[in-house]
């Protein structure tokens, strides 16, 4: 399998005033092959979105990549200039944002907004681009809607808006699509629709997909591999069935236990469990393992020493002292 994306020791920091920078993503390393889906799960504020934004150099003001590399088709994206990055964004790697209702300009027609992505990357006229946009819309499930490209975002439902946002993302035929919580704002039925759509598109275009979510259930039908993040660190990664069925890290276990009907045949009846406490303040991480204060399998050593990655099996990596 050829590697499309290689992330090595990525550290993302936010600087606020004169305070020392906060590490929101630390020591992140992972690979992605063409046509592969990687699910990233974790609670809010554990660095999933920052990691995704850092890959494309889209961090907001104050955010920067302190070290590490992001190799996409062999080029280190971290070292690229803004103008070169602009050629990569949308054309090679594109992004589906959290809330499609906000990610579409409310005063522009959706067809035009898709056409613009095409115009930004190809030498085509607005007319051609509009035609192309119509075709893409038909392809992603708007076949029955003739005039959908003339609609404004407010005339569409949440699921339709998310489809339009996905259409924007795939318009230029990218190799990698990063979807940041693409279904969080949608109801359960539409979630299934969107995930099914992503899966179809992925198979059709041989897309690599990074799917960020905090509901592990959405990953079940689509993810090949899963990466679990906690407090800016990747605590576990491995093949999806392995991680979902036999989680190693106590955090992953807690996260999966608190999910609804993940794997219906195995889910025990009884009250849902939850992980006590809340994610730590990234600016003041506790000594030792960041998860230790909330961990049910806490040991003495967890509070003094940071765990390191340990490999188990072919592609299973876990960052927990228990498995060292």
């Amino acid at each position, binding site marked *: 399998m050829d590697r499309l994306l290689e992330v090595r020791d990525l550290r993302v920091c936010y600087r606020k005033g004169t305070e020392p920078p906060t590490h929101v993503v630390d020591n992140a390393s992972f690979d992605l092959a063409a046509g592969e889906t990687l699910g990233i799960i974790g609670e809010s504020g554990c660095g999933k979105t920052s990691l995704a934004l850092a890959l*494309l150099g*889209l961090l907001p*003001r104050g955010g920067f990549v302190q070290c590490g590399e992001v190799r996409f088709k062999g080029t280190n994206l971290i070292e690229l200039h803004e*103008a070169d990055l*602009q*050629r*990569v*964004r*949308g*054309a090679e790697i*594109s*992004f589906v*944002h*959290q*809330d499609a209702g*906000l*990610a*579409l*300009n*409310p*005063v*522009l027609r959706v067809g035009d907004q898709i056409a*613009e*992505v095409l115009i*930004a*990357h190809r030498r085509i006229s607005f007319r051609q681009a509009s035609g192309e946009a119509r075709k893409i819309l038909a392809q992603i499930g708007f076949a029955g809607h003739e005039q959908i490209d003339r609609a404004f975002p407010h005339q569409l439902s949440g699921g339709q808006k998310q489809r339009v*946002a996905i259409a*924007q*993302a795939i318009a230029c035929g990218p190799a990698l699509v990063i979807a940041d919580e693409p279904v969080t704002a949608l109801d359960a039925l539409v979630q299934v629709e969107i995930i099914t759509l992503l899966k179809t598109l992925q198979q059709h275009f041989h897309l690599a997909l990074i799917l960020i979510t905090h509901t592990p259930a959405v990953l079940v039908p689509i993810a090949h591999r899963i990466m679990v993040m906690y407090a800016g660190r990747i605590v576990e990664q491995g093949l999806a069935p392995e991680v979902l069925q036999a989680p190693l890290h106590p955090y992953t276990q807690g996260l999966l236990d608190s999910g609804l009907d993940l794997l219906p045949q195995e889910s025990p009846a009884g009250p849902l469990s939850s992980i006590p406490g809340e994610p730590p303040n990234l600016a003041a991480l506790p000594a030792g393992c960041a998860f230790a204060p909330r961990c049910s399998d806490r040991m003495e050593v967890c509070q003094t020493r940071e765990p390191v990655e340990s490999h188990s099996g072919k592609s299973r990596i876990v960052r927990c002292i228990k498995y060292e």
Partner: protein
Amino acid sequence: MQKKLKFALLGLVLIHLAVLGARFFAPYDPAEQHRDFAFAPPMLLHWVDAQGHLHLRPFVYALVYHSESSAAGPYEDDRSRALPLRFFVESTTTHGNSQSAASGEPQRTNHLRLFGVDSPGEIFLFGTDDYGRDQLSRLLYGGQVSLFAGLFAAVLSLGLGILLGSVSGFYGSWPDAVIMRGAEIFMALPWIYLLFAVRAFLPLHVGAQESFFLLVGVIGLTGWARPSRLVRGVVLSAKHREYVLAARSFGASNFYLLRRHILPETYGVVLTQAALLIPQYVLAEVTFSFLGLGVSEPAPSWGNMLAELQKLYVLESYWWMFAAGLVLVPVFLLYHMVADAVQQAQL
């Protein structure tokens, strides 16, 4: 579009068209002097003559000079000489003094005018000034200077304001700091003294055209501060919108983001500012010419027409000399109506 906005825009368009078409609408050349009729009062249009007959074509009575000491003023109507109004008259204009051709052969031009009376009669619907120049004609020609100076100056300062405000809001950091401190300096300066100072640098006698562009430049270049701050505020909030980030993640350049997603959000503010700034700048031109620093005689502007009122006897005796001040009222009202309507439309 709201009724109010339509009405106000229609009014403004009509006023500007009238002013632009001064050559056609004005009965006289603005500099044409009628020395026999200095400070002639406005003539009334009559439909019914002294014998009680109704005329379909309105007429004015010829003026005769009576005596300086009369209570009703020095002029009175000659009831025996009715001058019917003629429309679409071909008129010959003699530039300069029509009384004496001492300064060589006066230049003559022929062109069509909306109305006039048969010579040797004269028609002064808004009266005349101390040189016997027709006030109506001077108002129309003067509007070309006053109204368009305001308009051009507003375009200039808004253009600068949008440019600097969007750079400031979009890029932030040091350009923002430099531009905004600059804007604060401009806002702290009392602009009228600033204008005096700038004017003081320049030669005392400049032609009408040069002084027009000078005024536009000076007013426009000093007025960018407030619009730029407003634009900066809108840009600042617009650039953090999710769809701007989304467009960036599809490979949009900064220029594209500004043009397509951010600047359109400032249009409302810019339009409102335009409708407020134009009358303000018209007033600035009027103030300037009133003080003798703007467009100078014999070219008319509403400001230098009002300057006559600096003489006490004019102020006391010749009320029609306020005409240039009175026309400012509807212009201001209409512009403010536009501003009001635009702002309402945004809410």
